[in-house]
């Protein structure tokens, strides 16, 4: 147990890589072994994660400057001339994301089985490398390490969309790649500027933040903040940087859409709470209103855009932009409140906003999966052509309804909690403007109901007669996520408790003047 938790983070990150390397030497024809290895690669990280969650409360929090507020530290010198270290650690923000990741990757892999038919070896290897990148981002405490993992995510994603995607896959894949890359190179320049300005000579995120958070607001620090923020906002994605997302989501194969929505978007939100906001809280506070406005636009615009779509999957894609908007407004509110001395309220907003990202991570993969189930059977995602599914495939239709209600924020399911707390926390900062975001909620609810009417209700269509209902594999993917959505919908305490200390710490940091 001790070894499992003390080397846990490295295992979580590199076990998939190790298995991917082993798979390189397995012949293409031996598909069974390839699948076994791939499942091993995604399941091994779950073991240390569970061990860490089990010992989370008892594990002491570190207090040194380099690891402040973190647990399960790994620290090895890497490039000492420029102060780059292999430093890993997690706080509440990190461990929840890791837990989400080790849950979703095996499920998405299971969803790939039978769905992906050609070049299976390539697919599985890329799939595992993707997990290396995402898990690495969530545990990095060193900027360079973070950046390496951040970029590692790009390539496998490009290929996963570009090779196995839908009709316009090549366009979608390169659009995704370019958007993210331009964001991240500018981010690198911003980070290097901060590194040189502080003179700490260390890329440790926490040490850097301790210095940079007290820098005066100048043109250059403002540049650095936006360089970081835009790099992350592309991933979240936040209006106006969201246009890659509908394309990427629609063209990606179902399992990859699940991961995109469930994990990859969270890289952006996680990076904001880990890097851009703690590093330059003074600039963040100054531009909190701007961020809030962009968040509100994300919410309302994405909701309206979703309503206008004819493609089921595109609707769900836009709903991701919508939900992540709640995180953005909560974060903006938190930096506004903290800088005005209301750290307590800021913590509420932060907790709510972060909860949204977690609940969205549970709900949206499942929604994409539901769309995928329809697509596999009917070979269409056109809302005009689908219909009467309650008559044709009742169980799938029920599952879809459950997901849709979770996604629109029905009380009692996980989606509601986060949005409710986020709005509560945002209200003291921006007053009645929060109502505009509330309007987004109403539109969201409306299109969900309309879509359900179109797809699920009505007379059974002749051309879809005789479709087979849910399979065992699909149930197996659906069950764990649905159960968690239910549990966290009525009992959010486990997540909120895990987040508590980190949220308070961040709220305090955001108030640094």
């Amino acid at each position, binding site marked *: 147990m001790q070894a499992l938790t003390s080397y846990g983070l490295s295992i979580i990150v590199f076990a998939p890589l190790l298995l991917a390397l082993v798979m390189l030497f397995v012949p293409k024809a031996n598909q069974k072994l390839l699948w076994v290895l791939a499942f091993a690669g995604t399941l091994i990280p779950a073991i240390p994660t569970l061990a860490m969650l089990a010992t989370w409360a008892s594990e002491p929090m570190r207090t040194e400057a380099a690891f402040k507020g973190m647990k399960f530290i790994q620290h090895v010198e890497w490039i000492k*001339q420029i102060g780059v270290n292999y430093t890993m650690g997690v706080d509440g923000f990190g461990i929840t994301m890791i837990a989400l990741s080790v849950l979703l990757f095996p499920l998405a892999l299971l969803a790939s089985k039978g769905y992906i038919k050609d070049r299976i070896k390539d697919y599985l290897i890329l799939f595992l490398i993707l997990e290396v990148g995402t898990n690495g981002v969530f545990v990095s405490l060193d900027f360079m390490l973070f950046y390496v993992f951040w970029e590692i995510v790009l390539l496998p994603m490009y290929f996963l969309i*570009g090779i196995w995607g839908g009709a316009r896959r090549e366009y979608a894949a390169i659009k995704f790649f370019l958007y993210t*890359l331009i964001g991240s190179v500018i981010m690198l320049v911003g980070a290097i500027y901060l590194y040189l300005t502080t003179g700490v000579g260390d890329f440790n995120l926490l040490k850097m933040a301790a210095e940079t958070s007290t820098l005066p607001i100048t043109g250059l620090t403002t540049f650095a903040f936006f360089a970081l923020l835009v790099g992350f906002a592309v991933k979240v994605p936040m209006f106006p940087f969201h246009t890659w997302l509908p394309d990427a989501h629609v063209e990606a194969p179902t399992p990859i859409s699940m991961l995109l929505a469930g994990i990859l978007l969270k890289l952006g939100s996680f990076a904001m709470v880990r890097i851009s906001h703690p590093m330059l809280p003074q600039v963040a506070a100054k531009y909190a209103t701007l961020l809030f406005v962009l968040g509100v636009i994300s919410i309302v615009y994405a909701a309206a855009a979703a309503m206008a779509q004819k493609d089921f999957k595109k609707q769900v894609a836009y709903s991701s932009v919508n939900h992540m908007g709640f995180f953005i407004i909560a974060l903006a509110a938190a930096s506004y409140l903290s800088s005005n001395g209301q750290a307590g309220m800021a913590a509420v907003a932060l907790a709510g906003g972060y909860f949204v990202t977690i609940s969205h991570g549970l709900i949206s993969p499942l929604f994409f999966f539901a769309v995928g189930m329809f697509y596999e059977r009917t070979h269409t995602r056109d809302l005009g052509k689908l219909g009467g599914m309650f008559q044709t495939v009742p169980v799938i239709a029920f599952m879809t309804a459950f997901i849709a209600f979770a996604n629109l924020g029905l009380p009692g399911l996980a989606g509601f909690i986060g949005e409710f707390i986020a709005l509560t926390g945002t209200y003291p900062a921006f007053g009645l403007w929060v109502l505009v975001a509330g309007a987004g909620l109403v539109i969201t609810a409306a299109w969900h109901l309309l879509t359900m009417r179109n797809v699920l209700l009505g007379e059974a269509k002749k051309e879809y007669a005789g479709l087979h209902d849910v399979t065992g594999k699909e149930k197996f993917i659906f069950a764990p996520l649905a159960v968690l959505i239910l549990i966290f919908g009525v009992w959010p305490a486990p997540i909120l408790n895990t987040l508590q200390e980190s949220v308070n710490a961040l709220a305090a940091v955001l108030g640094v003047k």
Partner: protein
Amino acid sequence: MPLPTIDWAAIVKPNYVYLLPEMIVVATMLIVMVTDFYVREKRLLVWLTVAGTVLAMIGVFFSATDETISSAIAAGAPLEFWGKMLVADSFTFFMKMVLLIVVALVTMLSIDYVEKYLKGMFLEFYEVLLAATLGMMFMVSSRDLITIYVGLELTSISSYILAGLLRKDPKSNEAALKYFLNGALASAILLFGVSLVYGFTGTTYLPDIAAGLGHVLQSGVAGTISLVITAMIFVTGGFAFKIAAVPMHLWAPDAYEGAPTPVTGFFSVGPKGAAFAAILRVFLVAFGASQLTKEWSLIWAVLATASMFIGNLTALMQTNIKRMMAYSSIAQAGYILVGVVASSAMGSPMGIGAVLFYVLAYALTNLGIFAVLTHMDQEGGWVKVSDFNGLSQRNPAYAWALLIFFISLIGIPPTAGFMGKFFLFRAAVGTQYLWLAIVMAVNSVISVGYYYGVVKAMFLEKSEREPLPVSFGVMATVAIAFIGVLLVGLWASPFINFTQMAAGLH
């Protein structure tokens, strides 16, 4: 009569120890030439050349670790040999090492190509390659304008010959002629600049030039400043040609396209790397201390920006990969120039270290790419993007290696190119050239556009063609470059140490 006792200490003076690598290269040239008369199996010449370059690397190691030489370096006053023509500082040794690695790799990757397309002109190819090597080694190790110029000419003339080695191919002929005519013009421009500098200072020895220019500029005679700047512009123009920086880049696409593929690979890293070393030496040592540093670094900054944009944007439109790589290497020259500009802020070895690191990373990466191109080149000089269709199914190892090399050129971790870009960013941001860093960042993204075309062809397109036969030389080069790119990227510490040591330019 008693035999005279040989005083080894007198013979093996640092003079000769220092010149050991050059002497080994010359000896290899002679041995290769003589061997050619007697052996039928011409491939032996290749291995002799490789052995010679490896021995020369060992020679570099010996001369760098020689007690007299290394203690002088440690004391901050490196020794000079052969009438102050050559200097023994760590910068020299680093560059010699890099160039020898380049030559060894080019030699290996060209084996089958020479046999197949150059009709077995082993002697010509390797002899001239070694001559170019010798020129480059003098170019990087001198701090006298005359020796630098002689080294540069030896390299250039050898390069003209190499470009035209496909004698029956009009494109190759055109390449050689264009390269030669443009190169001659550029040499003239450079020489004119050198003559102006000599006119001001009465010397070609770089440290004396620095002192002389100081006097001239302080004398306050009307018009001196503009004349000195004119001289600098001429010198800049001459060197800009050698590194194919905009606006002196127009020869490069044609020369790169027409030259035999392994030679193109050599052009893109060898003479270019040596020219960068010479630029650093001339501008930092001779012009660095003068109050005109701002002016000449601005000139280079403008050239860097233009090279990056024009190189990358034009590369987007190419369908022939060799031409595309020509424009890519113009853009890469722009990136490296960012480091040159940053190092103009004297007292910051950050810039020099960044240039050296990037040159190393770029050399490894580009040679890897050209090894794969040599493999793909089945018509003796012409490689289309569409030739790469479905390579990931036909020769997966090469496809993945090429992907990693492209990633390295774009500057995405975990590769050598990323670390190189990182140091360039750091140097630029650290010396108040934030805008240059941003231009570079934007250009890195633009460059994705054309590499993407090849990657798309390799991985997303299908092809019915048969896998191409794999040659040992190419495979070994790809493997070495691949390991090198990842090693320098992931385990950068020792390489940073080397470049930092070498950044002590004198």
